[in-house]
């Protein structure tokens, strides 16, 4: 798969060292052959830990080969507050994020096919400013929803976000309302929207489009919640249960339809969408 090739390029061509052969699972510390780790799309075969994917890696393993067409690349970050913090201007930070990731916002949108069925995809990338909800993010998601509405295609959003993008202040907050308005229009037209929450989906993203799917699913172990663990502990002055805000916890509390292993995701989505009788 393409993303593996890119990864290999990054680690460049020296002699074979231990770290070239093994990956240590960040969760269970098991030593996994890199080859196995890669084939499993960074899902630990021992403990089912799901390591992060970039947005393009995710699309690569999801859609029919060659079917993906990116949309809305004309939308990128903006700096409505001309924000400057201790580390300098937000615009610089955004520029660095673009350089680091090769992406132009925290979400990538496009159309593609799942076993021949046309769908609209919006996939967030945590590497891009923590997957934060900027105005570009919101605009892309709304445009994806509008594209889905126009072409009567199901919308699938993969979330991965720490929440609002502080550097865009209130404009970031407004993206919560903006994206949900797009989802509402899609719903009014009877078009499915499937929300897939990956690690982590918190704050303003969980409290907006991520939580209002016709079907809400998540990857195993993903952190999903509104407030941060530390804030809650400080507020209620007590320790939180170990599984608090995990996908499994969310499912037990009624907010997730299913928890789906990354390697079953494509099949699962194909199956689910077959139940939509346009």
């Amino acid at each position: 798969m393409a993303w593996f090739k890119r990864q290999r390029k990054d680690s460049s061509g020296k002699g074979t060292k231990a770290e070239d052969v093994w990956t240590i699972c960040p969760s269970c510390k098991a030593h996994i052959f890199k080859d196995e780790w890669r084939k499993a799309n960074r899902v630990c075969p021992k403990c089912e830990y799901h390591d992060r994917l970039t947005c393009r890696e995710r699309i690569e393993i999801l859609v029919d080969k060659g079917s993906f067409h990116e949309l809305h690349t004309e939308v990128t970050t903006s700096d409505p507050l001309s924000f400057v913090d201790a580390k300098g201007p937000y615009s610089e930070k955004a520029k660095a994020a673009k350089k680091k990731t090769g992406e132009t916002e925290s979400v990538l949108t496009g159309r593609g096919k799942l076993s021949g069925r046309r769908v609209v995809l919006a996939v967030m990338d945590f590497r891009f400013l923590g997957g934060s909800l900027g105005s570009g993010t919101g605009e892309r998601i709304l445009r994806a929803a509008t594209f889905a509405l126009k072409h009567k295609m199901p919308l699938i959003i993969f979330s991965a976000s720490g929440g609002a993008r502080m550097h865009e202040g209130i404009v970031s907050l407004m993206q919560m309302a903006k994206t949900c308005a797009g989802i509402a229009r899609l719903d009014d037209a009877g078009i499915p929207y499937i929300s897939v929450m990956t690690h982590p989906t918190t704050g303003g993203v969980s409290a907006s489009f991520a939580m209002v799917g016709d079907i809400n699913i998540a990857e195993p172990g993903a952190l999903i919640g509104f407030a941060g663990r530390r804030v809650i502990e400080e507020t209620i002055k007590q320790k939180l249960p170990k599984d608090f805000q995990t996908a499994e916890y969310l499912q037990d509390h009624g907010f997730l339809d299913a928890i789906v292993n990354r390697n079953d995701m494509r099949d699962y989505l194909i199956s689910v969408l077959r139940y939509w009788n346009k």
Partner: protein
Amino acid sequence: MAMEFEKTLLETEQKIAELQALAEKKNVNFGTELAQLKRKKTSLMKSTYAKLTPWDTVQVARHNERPLIRDYINGMCDEFLELRGDRCFGDDQGIIGGFAKIDERRVMLIGHQKGKTTEDNIKSNFGMANPEGYRKALRLMKLAEKFRIPVVCLIDTPGAYPGLEAEARGQAQAIAQNLTEMSRLATPIIVIVTGEGGSGGAIGIGVGDVVMMLANSVYSVISPEGCASILWRDGTKAPIAADALKITADSLLKLGIIDEIIPEPIGGAHRNYTETLQSVKDAILKNIERLRKTSRKRLVEKRFAKYAAMGRYY
């Protein structure tokens, strides 16, 4: 609650009070001195409040004598029939709502509830609502839609409650649901930030056809303290963060996030309830009058277009 920036003003007020007490006790007339002090007070109020920093404004917005929803209900409504419950789990007093009559207009009034006493604040959880509060609010909005009356939301919250139970019962889901449904509610929604507009907890009842702010209220994606401790790694940099976040009514009007600023009396809403309530009432009535001419369908279309235009990248 003493606010640092109005120290001189408070001292003057204190002097006036002392002089008045003395005059009464000794039955002496300090007319000239009093008049002078009062002139000084007025002038100080004007000058102080003319140059509030964003951080000063945060203090005013959070002032413990600022009018709260119960004050608006008592002073602005001829009738209030509280409606309770989310029909699922509970009745949260962090957000209250009910039928309200404002002059001849009947509306569904919904808003965060803070208290002035500790007891009231515990009951209403300091205006930090639980999911039940947001679900109740949504139920009442849908009732308003059915009854064909406008919704009026008063926002004043530090944020949605960050608690274990709140997470377990779906704080995120409740807010997300409200944002979704409010965007297509087929009745006018008028939103006013009266004090603190705290992030998701605020916008959870804050999607409207017209969104207004009282002149000294604030509306922000994160508290200045929270932002400072994350981006400056130093909570005491809150004044700087407050400035950077552009959380005042003026800034938000310029950014096109809000539609209107409701003026406050000189010296802040906490110094003159009557005038504040009258201004809020006038703003509500004026906007109801304006919005009632729009068809339900057009209303929803325009609301969508309004939010779709929020934060355009070009």
